[in-house]
């Protein structure tokens, strides 16, 4: 029997959603200050308006009286609502910028930002205000680190664990969620300091930009790369810079973003053996090397690039962008659409599998790929064994673990859900007249929160397809659990007793 959520349940969900709004009100101050600092008054006014909306909603919702602590059921609903409602308010300055045709386009861009996807329907990016660009990239950075961390950071205290689980980050790196989130922030800030310094140096010394512009480009590239987001300052993405050194620097940050925070922890502690033995590390390296070879062979077959260096550089960067689910590109989308055959297969599979769990990356995740591979290997062994024999499966992931039936089911279930998600988006794309190859590429890019495009994502794209891609980004980022919880809560609110 379904139990209707009590008014207390709804109040606690509302209260914690309000806290997320208040957190974003705090963050909104950054682009507001930037806009005032560089004298961009029109965007500045929009940021103040957004700050006001976040603040009043946050203040009103956190005022709701509750007598119960937040539990896991509330947590997942709060996350699901947060990821739906925050982009609606965060889109206000973008909507007022005049760079979008309608609110669906604006919401699409905000969802794409917060889910760290990077697909965009913004028009005339090359004339966009600096502060608005900062806001788009900041959205990706915050989305990458998770609303969860922001909320925990702002002292939600014990409720943080419930929120974290619902976002698919089940493993506490440190004993408590608050220390875990502080560690995540620390890793991010160290990478920010190093990454921005390196990118600034490259922009200033090698690319010949002015110091101010170098700092701006460095910050934006860092936000988009570490969050594996993929937004860019100019319409030609990272191809704008024409610099292999900058691509290498960005590549390092993209890899850092796609690495799980557990792996970061092991490396910080210099536990190299542990880092190498982790199932997820092995799984990611295996798929990376295999699919890179497939993509490179495919590109060679097509003969797209003349010369070994061109082949290696262009092939590697787009592939790295795909597997880390970043979405930067150094070639136009029309050129990417010409990557057919094996190159297409390698790129799409890399996007679909994505990065590691407990990272800013999207996709199925290397841990699930590793677990699924272990289960399949075990099943094929079982065929050759006497009936009834039991083969224990163990794996190393932050310590020795035994694969239980529940873990195997969960890994394979989520993997299947991702595949289903990719296929639904592909089907809708085909229904709108796009080729199977283009529709599959774009759908996987949206569902895996990648952001590479073969040209379907465009201001003139069909609205229904746009909504489907938005759902894909949202589901892909939250890994389905939050969606099921939200639907369950809504259903029980209607049909429960």
């Amino acid at each position: 029997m379904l139990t209707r959520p009590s008014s207390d349940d709804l109040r606690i969900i509302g209260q914690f959603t309000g806290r997320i709004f208040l957190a974003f009100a705090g963050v909104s101050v950054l682009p507001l200050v930037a806009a005032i600092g560089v004298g961009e008054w029109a965007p500045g006014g929009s940021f103040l308006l957004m700050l006001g909306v976040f603040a009043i909603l946050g203040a009103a919702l956190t005022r709701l009286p509750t007598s119960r602590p937040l539990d896991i059921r509330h947590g997942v609903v709060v996350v699901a609502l947060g990821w739906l409602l925050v982009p609606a308010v965060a889109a206000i300055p973008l909507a007022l910028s005049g760079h979008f045709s309608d609110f669906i386009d604006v919401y699409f861009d905000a969802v794409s930002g917060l889910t760290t996807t990077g697909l965009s329907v913004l028009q005339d990016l090359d004339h966009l205000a600096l502060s608005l660009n900062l806001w788009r990239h900041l959205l990706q950075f915050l989305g990458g680190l998770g609303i969860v961390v922001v909320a925990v950071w702002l002292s939600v205290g014990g409720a943080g664990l419930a929120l974290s689980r619902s976002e698919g980050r089940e493993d506490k790196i440190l004993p408590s969620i608050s220390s875990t989130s502080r560690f995540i922030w620390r890793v991010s800030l160290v990478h920010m300091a190093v990454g921005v310094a390196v990118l600034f140096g490259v922009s200033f010394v090698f690319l010949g930009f002015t110091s101010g512009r170098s700092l701006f480009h460095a910050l934006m590239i860092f936000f988009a790369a570490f969050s594996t987001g993929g937004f860019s300052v100019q319409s030609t993405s990272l191809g704008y810079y024409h610099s292999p050194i900058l691509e290498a620097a960005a590549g390092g940050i993209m890899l850092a973003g796609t690495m799980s925070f557990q792996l970061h922890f092991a490396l910080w502690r210099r536990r190299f053996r542990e880092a190498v033995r982790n199932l997820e590390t092995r799984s990611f390296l295996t798929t990376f090397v295999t699919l890179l070879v497939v993509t490179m062979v495919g590109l060679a077959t097509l003969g797209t690039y003349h010369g070994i260096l061109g082949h290696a550089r262009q092939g590697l960067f787009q592939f790295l962008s795909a597997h880390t689910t970043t979405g930067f590109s150094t070639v136009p989308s029309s050129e990417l659409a010409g990557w057919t055959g094996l190159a297409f297969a390698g790129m799409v599979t890399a996007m679909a599998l994505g990065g590691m769990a407990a990272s800013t990356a999207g996709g199925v995740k290397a841990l699930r790929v590793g677990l699924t591979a272990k289960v399949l290997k075990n099943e094929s062994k079982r065929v050759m064994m006497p009936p009834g024999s039991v083969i224990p499966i163990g794996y190393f992931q932050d310590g020795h673990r035994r694969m239980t039936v529940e873990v195997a089911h969960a890994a394979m279930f989520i993997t299947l859900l991702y595949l289903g998600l990719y296929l639904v988006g592909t089907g809708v794309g085909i229904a709108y007249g796009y080729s199977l190859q283009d529709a599959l590429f774009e759908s996987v890019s949206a569902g895996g929160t990648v952001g590479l495009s073969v040209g379907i994502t465009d201001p003139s794209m069909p609205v229904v397809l746009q909504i489907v891609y938005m759902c894909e980004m949202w589901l892909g980022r939250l890994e389905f659990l939050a969606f099921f919880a939200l639907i369950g809560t809504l259903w029980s609110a209607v049909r429960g007793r």
Partner: protein
Amino acid sequence: MGGIGFERRQITAEAGAKPRRQRGALPTRPGMARKNARGRRRLPSPGSGALVVVCVEFALVAAVAVLALAVAVVVSVF
């Protein structure tokens, strides 16, 4: 560090108003807290560890670049 705060809050919520000594999970003798904390993982401070992570990441980029180049060379030969 951070972990203790959360655990205490949780325990306080679960144990209600019980006297401190009756809450089984907490240390009952002076010095036990330090002993228990020894086995626990602590928040690492940024230092040479951070540098190690960054070096590993850039080494990985260099490694995959070499791999890509090697594959490009091999496929160009064939």
